[in-house]
């Protein structure tokens, strides 16, 4: 479905990605794990078109992706950016409606809204509340809901668990699994490698702009070097 080949991205003189290749197949949850500054967000931003790669190609369903984010949204890429950016002055419902900005199929929009409400009952309760007054976890859910309203097939998620209480982290990962059941494909970038590897099919480990390891999530999770670097000794002991 998505294929990234030899992708290079630089910020001025700093080379954030140095030849990254990944593949995402339909119906998978793929996770990219790595430390701060490894280039995880850069990769997602390059896929959705926010950043311009200096080299390499990205194809989606066989066609190259555009360099303009709004065109990629139309092609079916939905990106939940890091830091849950919601329109703080609008109501929850209007935020969700904005997700369907490019769509004209009113009936499908209405049924998608119902689906989002089913997925996030808390969001439904607060549909007429101003989005800026929601808690962090609720805003994350709203950002995810808004992305789903674009009806894209590939969902890019950037650190959905960032800054959330542990109990909410669990909820968010449950919801990601449910989004998969809606027929979406998910590319998940996470620092919480433990949780991400539990729900993912395959994983890529990104280190200083390079993919250093890839394979089924379970294999990555049991790899001793990965455990030591990303999962912490505690989880080794816990087995």
């Amino acid at each position, binding site marked *: 479905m998505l294929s990234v080949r030899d992708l290079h991205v630089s910020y001025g003189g700093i080379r954030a990605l140095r030849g990254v290749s990944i593949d995402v197949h339909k119906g998978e949850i793929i996770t990219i794990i790595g430390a701060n500054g490894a280039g995880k967000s850069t990769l997602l931003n390059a896929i*959705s078109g*926010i950043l311009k790669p200096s080299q390499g190609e990205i194809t989606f369903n066989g066609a190259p992706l555009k360099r*303009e*984010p*709004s*065109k990629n*949204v*139309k092609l079916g890429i*939905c*990106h*939940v*950016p890091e830091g849950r*950016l*919601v*329109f*703080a*002055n*609008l109501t929850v419902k209007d935020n969700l409606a*904005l*997700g369907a*900005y*490019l769509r004209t199929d009113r009936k499908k929009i209405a049924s998608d809204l119902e689906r989002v409400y089913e997925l996030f009952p808390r969001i439904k309760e607060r549909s007429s509340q101003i989005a800026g007054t929601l808690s962090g976890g609720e805003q994350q859910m709203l*950002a995810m809901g*808004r*992305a789903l309203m*674009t009806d894209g097939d590939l969902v890019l998620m950037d650190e959905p668990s960032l800054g959330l209480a542990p109990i909410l982290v669990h909820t968010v990962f449950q919801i990601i699994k449910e989004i998969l059941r809606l027929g979406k494909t998910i590319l998940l970038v996470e620092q919480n490698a433990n949780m991400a590897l539990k729900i993912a099919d395959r994983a890529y480990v990104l280190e200083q702009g390079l993919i250093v390891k890839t394979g089924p999530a379970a294999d990555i999770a049991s790899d001793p070097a990965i455990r030591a670097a990303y999962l912490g000794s505690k989880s080794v002991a816990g087995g």
Partner: protein
Amino acid sequence: MEYILGILILSAINLVAVLGLSVLTGFTGLFSFGHAGFMAIGAYTSAIVTARLHLPFAVGLLAAGLVAGIISIGLGRLTLKLKGDYFCIATMGFGEIVKPLLNNWKWVGGARGWESIPKYGGISLLLPFAVAVIAVILSWNLINSRQGRNMVAVREEELAAQMAGVNVLRSKMIALVFSAVLAGIAGGLMANFIGFIAPKTFNMVKSTELTIIVIFGGLGSISGSVVAALLLTVLPELFRAFSSWRLVFYGLAVMIIMIGRPKGLMGGLELTPTSLRKAAAARKAKRDTAAATAEGEKR
């Protein structure tokens, strides 16, 4: 009488420039400190068309808007990818480039300025007001269109707007070109109603004045910009009696109003017949509840 008419014409001209900037700054969230540059381009274009090419004033005004608009596309290509403050500084640089270019262009008078630009009297005196009214209608329609809502989305949360499918760069470009065209036309009006232009008229103080008017009226309010443009053009004239102290009073007045209404006169709201009715109803409701509680307390 002529003095009052002159002030009114000046307010109308300022209003045209301010409306464009209101769309750019108030609705799209891009601050510019270089729009006097576009006014200068418009003023000199219109002056060349009317004084050197001897074409009608209307042609001069259209050319003023057109040339300013085309130059703004170039400026936008170069600078619109810059974030917030950096864009602001880049526009400042643009405004400062225009001035020395004109200073060194002898054919249009250089630094001494250009006199004997054709002035128009009689029925033409209504032109600035007609242009101002058209500018209000255009701005109002623009911000209430799909494009206008895109601009507000960009102002509120750029990345989220992008992720919803708004072409952010295009929205910013439309706002910039719209503001430059109006600034250019305002410059053209200025040249042909004052009859004299000099590069130093269009300095950073002028750019800042335009932005101050937009902020003073309230970011995100067309009616606020209208009221502020009229008020802040007339205010310094009212203080003329204080002679050299006049600008001090002007500055004080601006400060006092900004402290009293930090979000500007209108604070992002609009002055329309419906909003006035709503405000009156809200006030009445408040009075009624206050009266009711007072009565309740008596019992």
